[in-house]
């Protein structure tokens, strides 16, 4: 998000010269081209998925495309049993770790911020939360204890893919 905005503002010429891929595009490409093979039986679920603000709502506004369907398709290639949070996509609730709050020392505020998100996750009954964002990943691991959800496994989307790969 920051890098792409920076390029568009300051270095628009790079879009003529180079190609760009998101983590989602690349994973989808590998899966569709058969370059990686996934075993769907390793994780029984139920799992759930959190839409990061920057890949979703903000990308939709700034770049005209929010990455909502792509991660869900990838997740479906890895786990049969997963449940969406409610609300999700454009109405998703932020994890509370965005905007630099993970490193600005406002830890109490950041933990409190996450309460609605943790309620949503609890309501799905999922034991695994899949996220495609370093900030969200850090935030969930940081606050889950405060919400008595230490058993929640927080997994990067690409970590899940790597763990499902048949090599």
């Amino acid at each position: 998000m920051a890098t792409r905005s920076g390029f568009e503002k300051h270095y628009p010429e790079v879009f003529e010269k180079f190609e760009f891929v998101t983590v989602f595009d690349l994973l989808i490409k590998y899966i569709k081209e058969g370059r990686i093979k996934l075993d769907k039986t390793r994780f029984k679920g139920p799992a759930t998925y959190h839409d990061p603000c920057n890949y979703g709502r903000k990308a939709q506004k700034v770049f005209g495309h929010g990455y909502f369907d792509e991660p869900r398709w990838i997740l479906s290639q890895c786990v049969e049993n997963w449940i969406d949070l409610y609300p999700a996509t454009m109405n998703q609730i932020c994890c509370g770790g965005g905007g630099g709050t993970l490193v600005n020392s406002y830890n109490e505020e950041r933990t409190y911020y996450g309460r609605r998100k943790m309620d949503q996750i609890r309501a799905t009954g999922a034991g695994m939360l899949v996220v495609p964002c370093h900030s969200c990943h850090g935030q969930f691991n940081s606050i889950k204890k405060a919400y008595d959800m230490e058993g929640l496994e927080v997994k990067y989307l690409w970590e899940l893919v790597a763990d499902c790969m048949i090599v």
Partner: protein
Amino acid sequence: MTAKDIIHMNELDHSRFKSWGFSQDFCVTCGLCSSSCPATGIDGFDPRKLIRMLSLGLESEVVASRWPWICTLCAKCENVCPMEIDIADAVRRVRSLRDRDKVPGNIHKGLEAALETGNNLRLPKDDYVFILEDVAEEIAEEPGYEGFTVPIDKKGANILTTIHNKLVNTHTEDLKHWWRIFHAAKEDWTVPSENWEGTNWAYFTGDDEAMKIMTGRIVDHMNKLEVKTLMWPE
């Protein structure tokens, strides 16, 4: 700020932020933003108040307040704003008005480190390369990944990647996921030996000049290493 704080009428300056293009003056004080914001109520914050303060030109109050740093820039508020006010961008702009040594926590310090050394941790190049190679050796010991190495500064590679600083700090295990995938997919990829920072904390501190420098380094890598594709860092 609390209700007890008194605003002096002579401090109001409607023209103060006139040049800011976030449509802040169109606010109809409906409060939809505040209803949708998960941070409403924290330390008296809510986005409607902040937007009104901008419209009224209460500069010193809004810049000194903790509010812009409680907000996560998540944009949930502006998604429901009937006047299409760019609330998150306005908050980020307010952050930019803080004296840099008063930016809370580590965000400005990390950014300063990145500007000076190429990464938020001030991690020297030798240590960084050692960590990458060490993790690569661990992968090479796993069945199916024999012969795995990390292609640092590989000229002409298809894909350029960057590194989130926490992956060469406390979370080195998390370097392995993408590396395993690249290996299995037989991808031709690379990672830079210097200026490898994948985060851009200038986005958080509101510092556009630093943002330009940080993104410019990635452009330099793409040109120098003659890569075909960039995998967006975040």
